[in-house]
């Protein structure tokens, strides 16, 4: 049975990608592993594992195209647009702001004059690759495009098609808790939230634990740089949310050096996590 594992955490820079790539690296020595970089805003896993990415497909978003000759300036397209991408004042031509549009389609439907049709705009790409026996899949949003979750959805479709080929699929999410993170967590059977024992780590972890509870995901906590503070902030939170801590990884100069130079991190202790996965 394929296990789909999410690596998330809320706060940025806690070590999500470091742990996701280190885990993939270890698991791939004995099992079939697909690593998915779902941080499509700022993907880094391919850098950490020196994976050469090959373009797999282009991701498009539909956006409305206005035929002003047909427009009767009724203003309805602007009325139905919930993202304020269309400003239409009655008796004036509608003004369309691309970067606000999520392609919902209400304006195309409501226009009585058929003055609005569709066009495609490229919003990003998805890539595949391979290194260290790890199959890689990743997405990248084009700059100035707002809807990251469309790229994540495209990744999800590829995962769905190919999941049977793998023992483990590791999905590395973006920081935060909004749409692209939720989309990336959707397919996961098990989720690890990576945090650090600082007040910020705790604050952001609490938000992601709330989200995981809402999403009804089986989740556990990984404390990275567990020795930067003696406070038991994360342990307290783990009790409150009844989510156990699967691994505590100490701060290591070697890891920082490997990370800073872009070498695969083979010296990070992942056996607690692997043991938990095999349970």
């Amino acid at each position, binding site marked *: 049975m394929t296990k789909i594992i999410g690596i998330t955490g*809320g*706060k*940025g*820079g*806690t070590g999500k*990608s470091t742990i996701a790539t280190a885990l993939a690296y270890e698991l791939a020595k004995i099992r079939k592993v697909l690593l998915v970089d779902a941080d499509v*805003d*700022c993907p*880094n896993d391919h*850098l*950490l594992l020196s994976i050469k990415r090959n373009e797999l497909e282009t991701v498009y978003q*539909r956006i409305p195209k206005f035929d002003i000759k047909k427009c009767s300036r009724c203003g309805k397209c602007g009325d*139905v647009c*919930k*993202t304020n991408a269309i400003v239409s004042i009655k008796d004036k031509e509608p003004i369309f702001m691309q970067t606000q549009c*999520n*392609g*919902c*389609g*209400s304006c195309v*439907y*409501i226009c009585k004059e058929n003055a609005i049709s569709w066009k495609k705009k490229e919003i990003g790409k998805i890539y595949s690759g391979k290194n260290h026996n790890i199959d890689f899949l990743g997405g990248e*949003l084009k*700059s*100035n*495009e*707002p*809807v*990251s979750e469309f790229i994540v959805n495209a990744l999800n479709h590829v995962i769905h098609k190919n999941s049977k080929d793998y023992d483990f699929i590791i999905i590395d999410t*973006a*920081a*935060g*808790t*909004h*749409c*692209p*993170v*939720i*989309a990336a967590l*959707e397919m996961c059977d098990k989720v690890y939230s990576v945090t650090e*024992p*600082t*007040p*910020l780590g705790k*604050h*952001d972890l609490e*938000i992601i634990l*709330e*989200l995981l*509870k*809402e*999403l009804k995901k089986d989740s556990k906590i990984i404390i990275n*740089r567990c020795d*930067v*503070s003696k406070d038991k902030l994360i342990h307290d939170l783990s009790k409150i949310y009844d989510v156990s801590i699967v691994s505590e990884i100490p701060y290591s100069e070697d890891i*920082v050096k490997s*990370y*800073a*130079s*872009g070498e695969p991190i083979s010296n990070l202790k992942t056996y607690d996590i692997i043991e938990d996965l095999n349970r």
Partner: protein
Amino acid sequence: MKTITILSGKGGVGKSSITASLAIALSKYKKIICADCDVDASNLSIVIGTTKKESWNDLSTNEKIKFDYNKCTLCKKCYDVCNFDAICWDDKPILKEFSCEGCGFCELICPEKAITLEKIYNAKIGYVNSGYGFKVVSAQLNAGASGSGKVVFEVRKKARELAEDSEITLIDSSAGIGCPVIASVSGTDYAIVVTEPTPSGFSDMKKAIEVLDHFKVPYGIIINKFNINTKYTDKIGSFADEHDIEILARLPYDKKFTEALVNLTPIIDYDTKFRPIFDNISKILIDK
């Protein structure tokens, strides 16, 4: 009033720590207000050391649909038109709550008027008094809620309302380059890209810069932890030279940063050796 946004692309490079100390340094020279626009995980006020919220109210920027199954004729039109895969079909339409963007297309198309849009409270918004004489406006998106971009606009609006005679608004944006970051940088007067000298930091910095170029926002760079990899610090330096980008400051990697965080004290107050660096950035910013 001038608006300055701090962003980074990559998370965890020190955006909030730097914003907090910069705000404190700037507030010596100018009246300022801060807007924490990382609405997924709003934690600027924690770094500044104050968490006592002066007002903390429900905010609604989104709607979600509701089905009236008594009226539904199972025509499947709603299912067919949803662009967000938010409606799944299990003998009848079922809403996948976390995927619904509240666009309202299904409500428009339903011939039986079996779908209604309902206002949802997707965030909380408020502010804290920092103890340094300026306010920090913030919002927190509810778990699983969508609409982060719109919530960012509300935070910026609230900051304008509370600004009084402030001369500078300092915006702390979220990680990434998607919708909440675009909402944080659009229409801002100047931006600071915080980066670190690692392959990831460098790659993500370039993505953040592309967004700023698109929105025609002028910007400078702060290299944090510059001493962890001098090769990449040099790379960032040559990139900045080539593109005529100003490097506002280079901050060293120092365990004091983590200690300051753990002690809920901004680094500028935790270790005075950092004060001149932030004072210097402030002076550069004031002249912008």
